[in-house]
């Protein structure tokens, strides 16, 4: 613990790019920031850590001119600045990758990257240069995405990569990344880190926000911690441990990352899928979930895990295969029939498929199970509606000024908790959690893990789709590893390792097997 003073003789700190002093911001009913200080040097990666709703995104939006500060001072390259739009901050050399994706679905990747900055020839867009430049940008990241592809055809992870490419193409001197890796797998995150190292070497200052504290060691130089909108500390990353960061974020020490399991997996098959195929997407997917267990789905981006879950849930069609629950073969034609049969699917795409963001917190929590708070004739019982919503707000410690707050005004992590609450309220028999802890802080993650364990202990079958291998290893009893639309192995978590899983996920099987 404790803060290390700068040791004597340490090299002089690099040029200061940005410094904030006493920044405050208030939204109706929420003091998002109070007296926050922060600074950024050229060539460093400065992480900002804090729980969901601590004010990280708000701080970044103030720096980039999305919001105006109520109080405080921002000095950028030696001058006090008052950006009133991202256009201004971009022009000044500050680029931001927002936590939420902001791409235009019907335009191509290249058009998105250069939106409003298209290379021109006279009045016309120079399409050849547009696509060539975009290709160069994507190559620099090392991702294999076709610049001609329409954004709506991309997965969430690919969209995230396009956002990153877009920010890189600005060649900014300050680059703010608000949870850039939340939907990326380890490999893809590595691609990003490589670029970050290049940028550092070139003297770019990078603000880095993430709830994946473990990955920070690779790139982060300093870390600032916020709690409840207040500034807590700033340290050299090398002088602080992850445990300390967590303790300061949460305000108390957190001993364990994963709860001790209370569930007891049985051999009793609750749910099984066999020969599930959708031509060109996945084929011959077979797995079973036993009562009381958590089954992990591991794999690289595009391995087909989400697609399989969506097909089982009736959100997408499939060509062949049978799905059995409790010994009964299900015929699922759409999400409604799947939900009725007792299946729930928590989408990885929060804003696109999970939430009605204009609607209030309570309406979203109740959305999948309105019948439970309404009379037989379909009239909503307001008291039950309120009580049930409040119960899930409390259970998941969702941070909101009221039940009537539109969901779009909540912080990213709290939005995610609402989706979880929505499905918990439905009390299904099988739950597919697709990246359930994306963007969720450590404390809340623990709570969600605990809930998953409790659900499994109550006999609910759980499938955990996650890009974070440690999460899969820490939580699941068995792991189905996906590679290019097939399950290449189903392993017992206790007898496997990260390396094993990676091997199967990359399509190579282990020697001698």
């Amino acid at each position: 613990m404790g803060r290390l003073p700068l040791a004597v003789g340490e090299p002089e700190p690099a040029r200061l790019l940005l410094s904030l002093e006493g920044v405050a911001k208030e939204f109706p009913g929420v003091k998002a920031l109070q007296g926050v200080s922060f600074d950024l040097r050229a060539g460093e990666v400065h992480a900002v850590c804090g729980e969901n709703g601590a004010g990280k995104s708000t701080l970044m939006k103030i720096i980039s001119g999305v919001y105006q500060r109520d109080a405080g001072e921002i000095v950028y390259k030696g001058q006090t600045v008052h950006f009133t739009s991202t256009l201004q901050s971009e022009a000044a050399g500050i680029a931001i990758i927002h936590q939420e994706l902001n791409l235009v679905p019907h335009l191509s990747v290249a058009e998105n990257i250069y939106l409003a900055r298209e290379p021109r020839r006279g009045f016309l867009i120079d399409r050849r240069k547009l696509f060539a430049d975009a290709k160069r940008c994507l190559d620099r990241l090392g991702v294999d995405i076709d610049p001609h592809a329409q954004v709506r055809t991309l997965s969430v992870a690919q969209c995230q990569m396009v956002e990153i490419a877009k920010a890189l193409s600005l060649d900014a001197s300050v680059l703010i990344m608000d949870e850039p890796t939340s939907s990326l797998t380890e490999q893809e995150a590595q691609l990003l880190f490589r670029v970050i190292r290049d940028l550092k070497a070139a003297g770019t200052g990078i603000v880095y926000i993430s709830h994946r504290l473990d990955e920070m060691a690779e790139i982060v130089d300093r870390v600032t911690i916020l709690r409840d909108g207040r500034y807590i500390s700033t340290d050299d990353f090398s002088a602080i441990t992850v445990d300390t960061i967590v303790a300061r974020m949460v305000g108390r020490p957190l001993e364990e990352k994963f709860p001790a399991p209370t569930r007891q997996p049985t051999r009793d098959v609750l749910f099984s899928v066999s020969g599930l195929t959708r031509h060109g997407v996945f084929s011959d997917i077979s797995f079973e979930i036993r009562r009381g267990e958590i089954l992990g789905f591991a794999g690289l981006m595009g391995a087909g895990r989400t697609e399989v879950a969506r097909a089982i849930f009736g959100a997408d069609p499939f060509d062949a295969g049978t799905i059995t629950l409790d010994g009964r073969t299900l015929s699922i034609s759409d999400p409604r029939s799947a939900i009725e049969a007792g299946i729930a699917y928590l989408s990885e795409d929060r804003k696109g498929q999970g939430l009605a963001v204009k609607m209030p917190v309570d309406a979203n929590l109740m959305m999948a199970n309105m019948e439970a708070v309404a009379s037989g004739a379909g009239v909503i019982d307001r008291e039950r509606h309120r009580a049930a919503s409040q119960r899930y707000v409390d259970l998941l410690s969702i941070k909101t000024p009221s039940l009537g707050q539109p969901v779009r005004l909540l912080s990213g992590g709290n939005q995610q908790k609402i989706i979880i609450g929505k499905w918990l309220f439905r009390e299904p028999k099988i739950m597919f959690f697709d990246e359930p802890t994306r963007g969720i802080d450590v404390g809340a993650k623990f709570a969600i893990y605990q809930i998953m364990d409790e659900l499994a202990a109550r006999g609910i079958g759980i499938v955990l789709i996650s890009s974070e291998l440690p999460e899969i290893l820490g939580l699941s009893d068995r792991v189905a590893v996906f590679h290019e639309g097939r399950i290449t192995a189903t392993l017992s978590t206790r007898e496997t390792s990260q390396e094993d899983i990676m091997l199967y996920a990359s399509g190579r099987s282990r020697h001698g097997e």
Partner: protein
Amino acid sequence: MADITSGKPQEPIQSRQTPPGRGLSDRQKDIIQKFAALGSLVILAAVFATTSSAFLTVNNGMTIALQVTSIALLGIGATYVIITGGIDLSVGSVLALAGVVAALAVRDLGTPIWLGMLIGILTGSACGLINAFVITRLKLPPFIATLGMMLIARGVALQITGARAVSGLGEAFGVLGNGSLFRIESIDDQGFPVVSFPGIPYPVVLMIVIAIAAGFLLNRTVLGRHIYAIGSNADAARLSGVNVTRVTAFTYLVSGTLAGLTGCVLMSRLVTAQPNEGVAYELDAIASAVIGGTSLIGGVGTISGTFIGAFVIGILRNGLNMNGVSAFIQQIIIGLVILVTVWIDQIRNRR
């Protein structure tokens, strides 16, 4: 996912122009907005009352209410449809078709009046169902689907009447449109009727009952919640188990049915069925919803707002008429009112 028009991050755009107000909750703001709309209604009425002595009389009040009925009934349907993110351009034509079908049934088939009117209303429902089918099954955009219906329904109405008004319907056909509840009448010594209270016209009663029912459905029932959910995020609604097809279809059915009812009421008032009736009424309906705070992007809107919107349009028309403002100038003024109210609403929503 993103702002289609500019592609810049959405939140920046929303929050750039106006600093968020401080100290007011969303709820308080909504209430203020409601009162603002109501307030402007009162101010309008007050201004007209001073400029024209005939404005503030029971009789004129009833006239306004009657004029507002059709806008309000169509506006309720429009509100449902627009909340889901759709639009219904066909209601003006559908009401004409429904009206002439009812009239033809009574005149040429000799059906009782109530049955004729029922057939008229169901004609509206049928048009709504066809819209719903084209939109939810054939997956045509609502704008196109209902534009097609707008032309088709008008064409059919003109065809089956030979483009002539259907008259000679008998006095009883006019009861729905001209009769009223609680009318107090006495016969004076000369044998002339004296009206001490004109009563509440049946159309007004209908409008109030339907508005209350429609508001209740939207606010307090699961179906209403699903209507909002679809407009707010259809994908999320579908993945939450909402029967998006059925609920969407329901809104077009309501819109068509209310158009059918409006058609019968209007034709009954004139005791003649005009195949050319109701041209451009869909625009009044949409305008009343929009003035009342319904968002054309979907997910937002209330019946009470639409009700106020319908009265704003009705009072403006009536008051301007009484002050002898020409029909052309009226159009200009109503156009401006729509622009200003929606602009104010947008500012309110940019937080």
